[in-house]
């Protein structure tokens, strides 16, 4: 039974459970809803919840677990000899899955009957031709072992799907029945629903946290794998970045880290003053009419995809800088792609982050502080400089560090604006590259995934992660230390 049908059936059961629970509660109270502990709809929701929650939980777990089980079973059917020279079990298994999918399709299109599909053998018929006419192309000739594994794969999957349907619907019915049995006038359905809602919210929060942990773990394992085949001392100690896919590459992180920090620094140099001043103007000086137009307009900048900023860097800012600092001008710049180009454009991208967050923070400073300062005869700018900005400082530092995290993680603008040369240079008009841009170029090649040249991407990613994590922890520390309590 397809998953969609299963979901629809459980939903239908939940609706039925809602109606049944509600009706049962009302009739249990002798049609007098005042005798009920909770409103009738709570009894309905209680039943519906107990139908859906266990059933869907089981469905999710099953959907995750079944592929593993089926894979393991099919793999165990493949003898060592079925794996050709120079191939891996993974490659053979993907063949098995393709054949199994092909058989499914063939049955669906009526080329084979269900019985034929499971009885099929390589000797008796042209399996490859049949699958081909069903629209599935299989590269190599299908060996009997692969076919057998595919057939077992199909069979296990079919049994699994059947069992899944039985378990899910069974759980839904069981949950509904138990909840209906609970439904008596003095049952505290309202509290029960409240607990259920809390559980759902906790679940949503945990998914976010678990995903983060999952991301970190996937990075960690690949990073460890990288450091097994490439010495960490060279990764952190070498000042040369020269990957060569033939082997013998030098993968020192410093040129990339330098590029990242240099570009981010220029971006912050552009965005922090402009963003902060814009925020001060918007929150303290601008009239309500201007503010209502200017603030959304400024925030529009945040909605522009970074690739568009990249185009801006490549086509406008780069040539513009080149005409001033290039060979025709001061002669400091070789080409349009440079740290300065990417830094300026990234700075423009970050202005709305800094200004929007700072604006909110400045607005949160209580009016009473402004009044106090004006009441002492301070001017607007004195008030802003000496009272409002110090009061808002923790939040502003947080906004700046957030912008810094964005700058460090930015990729597209760097790829298009800063060039691809990994070098250590102080000249902001030289082309450089960053950690993120190199992660992209290391992973988008034809490189063997087990080579250090590809795996270095994970070590780079991990370094970035640790850096931004450090920045965020530092931001939290600053905010906590200097937070003012307004009461």
């Amino acid at each position, binding site marked *: 039974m397809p998953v969609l049908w299963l979901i629809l059936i459980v939903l239908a059961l939940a609706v039925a459970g809602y109606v049944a629970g509600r009706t049962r509660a009302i009739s249990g109270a002798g049609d007098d809803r005042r005798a009920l502990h909770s409103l009738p709809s709570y009894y309905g929701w209680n039943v519906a919840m107990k139908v859906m929650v266990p059933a869907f939980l089981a469905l999710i777990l099953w959907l995750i677990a079944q592929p593993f089980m089926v894979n393991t079973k099919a793999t165990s059917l493949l003898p060592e000899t079925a794996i050709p020279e120079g191939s891996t079990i993974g490659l053979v298994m993907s063949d098995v899955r393709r054949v199994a999918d092909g058989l499914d399709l063939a049955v669906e299109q009526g080329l084979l009957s269900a019985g034929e599909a499971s009885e099929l053998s390589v000797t008796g018929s042209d399996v490859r031709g049949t699958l081909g006419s069903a629209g599935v192309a299989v590269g190599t000739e299908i060996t009997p072992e692969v076919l057998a594994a595919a057939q077992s794969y199909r069979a296990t999957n079919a049994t699994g799907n059947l069992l899944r349907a039985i378990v899910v619907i069974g759980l839904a019915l069981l949950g509904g029945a138990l909840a209906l049995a609970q439904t008596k006038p003095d049952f505290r359905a309202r509290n029960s629903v409240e607990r259920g809602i809390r559980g759902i919210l906790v679940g949503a929060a945990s998914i976010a946290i678990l995903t983060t942990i999952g991301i970190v773990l996937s990075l960690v394992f690949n990073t460890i794998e990288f450091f097994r085949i490439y010495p960490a001392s060279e990764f952190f100690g070498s000042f040369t970045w020269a990957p060569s896919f033939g082997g013998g590459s030098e993968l020192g992180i410093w040129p990339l880290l330098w590029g990242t920090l240099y570009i981010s620094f220029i971006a912050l140099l552009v965005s922090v003053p402009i963003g902060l001043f814009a925020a001060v103007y918007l929150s303290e000086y601008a*009239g*309500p009419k201007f503010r209502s137009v200017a603030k959304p307009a400024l925030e529009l900048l945040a909605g522009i995809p970074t690739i568009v900023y990249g185009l801006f860097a490549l086509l406008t800012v780069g040539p513009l800088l080149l005409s001033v600092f290039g060979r025709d001008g001061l002669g400091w710049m070789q080409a349009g792609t440079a740290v300065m180009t990417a830094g300026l454009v990234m700075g423009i991208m970050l202005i709305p982050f800094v200004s929007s967050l700072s604006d909110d923070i400045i607005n949160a400073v*209580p009016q*009473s*502080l*402004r*009044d*106090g*300062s*004006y*009441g*002492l*005869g*301070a*001017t607007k700018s*004195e008030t802003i400089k*000496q*009272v409002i900005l*110090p*009061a808002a400082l923790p939040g502003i530092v947080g906004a700046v560090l957030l912008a810094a995290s964005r700058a460090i993680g930015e990729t597209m603008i760097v790829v298009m604006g800063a060039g691809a040369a990994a070098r250590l240079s102080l000249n902001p008009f030289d082309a450089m590259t960053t950690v993120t841009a190199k992660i992209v170029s290391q992973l988008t090649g034809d490189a063997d995934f087990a080579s250090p040249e590809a795996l270095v991407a994970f070590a780079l990613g991990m370094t970035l992660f640790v850096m931004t994590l450090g920045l965020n922890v530092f931001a939290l520390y600053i905010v906590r230390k200097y937070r*003012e*309590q307004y009461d």
Partner: protein
Amino acid sequence: MYDSPLRKTEVDTNASKISARDVQVYYGDTHAIKDVNVEILDKTVTAFIGPSGCGKSTFLRTLNRMNDTIDICRVEGLIELDGEDIYDKRVDPVQLRAKVGMVFQKPNPFPKSIYDNVAYGPRIHGLAKNKAELDEIVEKALRRGAIWNEVKDRLDAPGTGLSGGQQQRLCIARAVATEPEVLLMDEPCSALDPIATSQVEELIDELRENYSVVIVTHSMQQAARVSQKTAFFHLGNLVEYGDTSQIFTNPVDPRTESYITGRIG
């Protein structure tokens, strides 16, 4: 409760400090203050009383142009400080507010140290030649604010860490540090407990020696305790203005009598 007349002195001057004539205040379309005429005397505590929303705080804020910070607020009529129109175009509201200090309903110390809170006004107005002189000004202001003994050992501690009553006295010290000529107080005790209130009231009486003090209050007992002159506002009108003893014992207007006896309000 604290009705024992601590320091009931008669008005000992007749020099007018602030004089308001035919003052109208509008908030957008709302006519908040109507035809108010009042003479506020020097070295006197003047209390504004009246029910909530009667315009007494609004009127107080027109006296140092704090209403300028509200966009929709419009003031008409003549308000003079020492004979000079404070709404004249040539008057800098910032300079005016240095002369006419203000203490607010809720204590609002800046998120700075106690010292920097008090030194804020003198610093922006350049009242001190050097650090030693600034120290002196700060100490004097804190002593006048009757809080010196409590904070002298921790002038570097944040002002926001003090208790509510201490914060309010710090705000008063901050206001007197700029040597204003008039001190406006908008319900300065409404967030304080009775003990802190009595401390602030004593302080107000001492401040009278040097300043003209105008206090808005909801507590008629407080008005009777601290002020020499009382003005009663009702629905944006100044109903009655006179010596405090006369207002509380022998009001002329029936509305004043109703209010102080608790029949309206």
